[in-house]
């Protein structure tokens, strides 16, 4: 990707990108934790009927589905300080938009799920009220990946990454920084 014109001093942009990446790492840790809880909650539901919504596995699961949209929302607010991370028409970055929409889906699914389980206590994994938990997470992960790639590309453009020690890869890295990486395949 070609070098983009600087809209704010390089040092300032680098510090802001680092702060965004640190927040993304925190969100990644929270997402990793909720993946573990999928197994914990799944194993509980295999062994016992759903006598209450307030089991430790549910506190763990549901608190994360509230924390994730709020956390990514905080990243979105801070993200406005880096003009090159903005989306089309000066709007919110498309990746972060997808992430927040996906996790908001899971957050609202908590309510839908509880309404369903008011009538049907049996925890069948494939029932429709569980679909939007999974669909929301998938949409959020796709968006987060797109956002992290954009973030990383900008960090590489600014020279924040250490060049690789492999000389062949280092050459590709140098070409990428000069905007010439694709000139081999697209003359």
């Amino acid at each position, binding site marked *: 990707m070609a070098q983009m014109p600087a809209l704010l001093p390089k*040092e300032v942009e680098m510090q802001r990108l680092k702060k965004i990446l640190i927040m993304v790492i925190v969100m*990644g840790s929270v997402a990793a934790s909720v993946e573990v809880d999928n197994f914990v909650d799944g194993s*509980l539901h295999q062994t016992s009927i759903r006598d209450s919504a307030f089991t430790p596995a549910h506190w763990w699961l549901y608190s994360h589905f509230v924390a994730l949209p709020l956390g990514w929302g905080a990243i979105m607010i801070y993200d406005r300080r880096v003009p090159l991370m903005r989306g089309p028409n000066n709007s919110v970055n498309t990746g972060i938009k997808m992430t927040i929409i996906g996790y908001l889906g899971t957050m609202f699914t908590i309510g839908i799920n509880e309404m369903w389980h008011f009538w049907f206590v049996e925890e069948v994994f494939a029932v429709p009220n569980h679909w939007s938990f999974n669909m929301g997470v998938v949409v959020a992960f796709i968006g987060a990946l797109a956002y992290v790639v954009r973030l990383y590309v900008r960090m590489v453009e600014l020279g924040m990454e*250490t060049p690789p020690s492999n000389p062949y890869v280092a050459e590709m890295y140098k070409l990428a920084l000069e905007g010439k990486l694709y000139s081999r395949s697209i003359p």
Partner: protein
Amino acid sequence: MAKKEAPKDEIERMIGKRTEHMKGLYIIGAIMAWAATAFGVWVGFTYYAWAYPFSSGMYALSVLTVIIVFGFIFIWKVAHEKPAIP
């Protein structure tokens, strides 16, 4: 086009606290995350002993501790990295 650099003190003001100087936040954040996790696990095996025996709680706490430590190491690395092209 000649690039006009902002004065140094203006840049410092725009940056605010540098990531390298936010060590306390990372350390206290990690400790609080671990303490909250341990508390949750304790509640689990104390009040839901029929579903979560002590050993299950310790297993969950170990996995979550690894996640917290990985996150902390990664944050520490990002915060203290020096740019390859300054």
